């Protein structure tokens, strides 16, 4: 598929064509007129090159409802609504906010303040809870009352900040924690044997991609006739950490045969 031509290129090309046509049908009568025309044309091309925005840029009306979340958080009766909206409870939200707030991605040297981190986090979580066309940047931007570009930036910043705590939350169990898992196994079975040494479970799942990829499409094609990533997860099993998912996420790049392993 040919990439579509940028608007600027398109305009300049058509201008050059019209200039050439013009010269064929009414060629300049003398050298002076010729130079004058050339100068005018060059000025126009320069103008086209330098104009930053070629289209009208009308302000986009925005009316987000992301601030509703703060209202919901006020009253425990509405916490359910908060969770539906942002996928985590107000308590977890505040914990995450507390963790990432001081991360350097949210700092800049200019006097222009950044959007408050809680807004950025709320938009990110809102987006993470959605799929299909409801998860498109356009839909998220409309619901949140920010521009599409901002939504992408918010997500990017929050991801970077959250992932800086990857090692803290996704890690190997300590010996004591392992012992808890092993004791749980003993209780579950009613006897103590080699079984208790199995403190972890492996499982795989496919994270589906919403459409076919531009690169190496076939490598992502799953037997369920969709495209996805294979996620390998290691679980711990006890009541306490039931479904406490410590994941060694194995990602695999087909082209370089390089495997990236997220570990502590």
């Amino acid at each position, binding site marked *: 598929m040919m990439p579509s031509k940028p608007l600027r290129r398109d305009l300049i090309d058509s201008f050059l064509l019209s200039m050439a046509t013009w010269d064929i049908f009414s060629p300049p009568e003398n050298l002076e007129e010729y130079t004058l025309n050339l100068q005018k044309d060059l000025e126009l091309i320069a103008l086209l090159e330098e104009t930053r925005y070629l289209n009208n840029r009308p302000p986009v009306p925005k009316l987000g409802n992301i601030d509703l979340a703060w209202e919901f958080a006020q009253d425990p009766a509405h916490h359910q609504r908060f969770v539906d909206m942002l996928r985590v409870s107000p308590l977890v939200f505040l914990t995450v906010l507390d963790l990432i707030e001081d991360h350097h991605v949210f700092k800049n040297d200019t006097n222009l303040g950044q959007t408050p981190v809680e807004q950025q986090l709320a938009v990110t979580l809102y987006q993470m809870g959605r799929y299909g066309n409801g998860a498109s940047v356009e839909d998220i931007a409309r619901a949140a009352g920010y521009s599409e570009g901002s939504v992408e930036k918010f997500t990017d910043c929050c991801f970077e900040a959250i992932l800086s705590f990857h090692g803290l939350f996704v890690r190997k169990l300590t010996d004591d924690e392992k012992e808890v898992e092993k004791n749980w196994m003993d209780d579950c079975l009613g006897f103590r*044997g080699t079984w208790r040494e199995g403190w972890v479970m492996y499982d795989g799942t496919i*994270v589906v991609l919403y459409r076919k990829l531009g690169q190496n499409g076939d490598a992502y094609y799953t037997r369920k006739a969709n495209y996805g990533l294979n996620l390998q997860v290691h679980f711990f099993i006890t009541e306490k950490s039931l479904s406490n998912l410590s994941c060694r996420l194995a990602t695999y790049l087909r082209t370089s045969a390089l495997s990236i392993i997220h570990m502590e």
Partner: protein
Amino acid sequence: MTGSAHDSNAFEHTTAAKHADWFFQGEEFAWADSAYAVNSTTIPVHKKPASLEPKNALFDKVVASLRVRSEHCMGALKGRFQCLRGLRVHINSNKDHYEACRWISVAIVLHNVVIDVEGSKSAEYFGNVHGTEEEEEDTGNYQEDGVGGDDDDAKRRKLVEELWAFENGL
């Protein structure tokens, strides 16, 4: 790993598989489903026809009852962060592949934060949104004969015997 990869192939690239010595100590091992190859650190349930034997069938049943939890967990993760049900990332370059993995990593970190802050009860809150049926659709496993030829069955046989002995009061 990309979606076309079989679970056991994808697994070979994980830390636990590559650095088993670092991950497991002594007799420690992990439970898995029948898609994985059996060895001293990976104990899957039996494939047919071995699974028809009464001793093995008992073993498989008990392991399966333990493993239900991991499916619940997948459900909870995909129910909470539903972006994982159709990741909106255009993969046109290796960089985009990392970007897609970033979405998954963030979801997992946040899932673990929920557990640390509120315990497993609330972690399971979204479990029924993405239930067993949906997960069945997504699971990367399928039965394939002849995966992993160099099976080392000794540890699993030991476990089978232990359970059998216990259940029969020996």
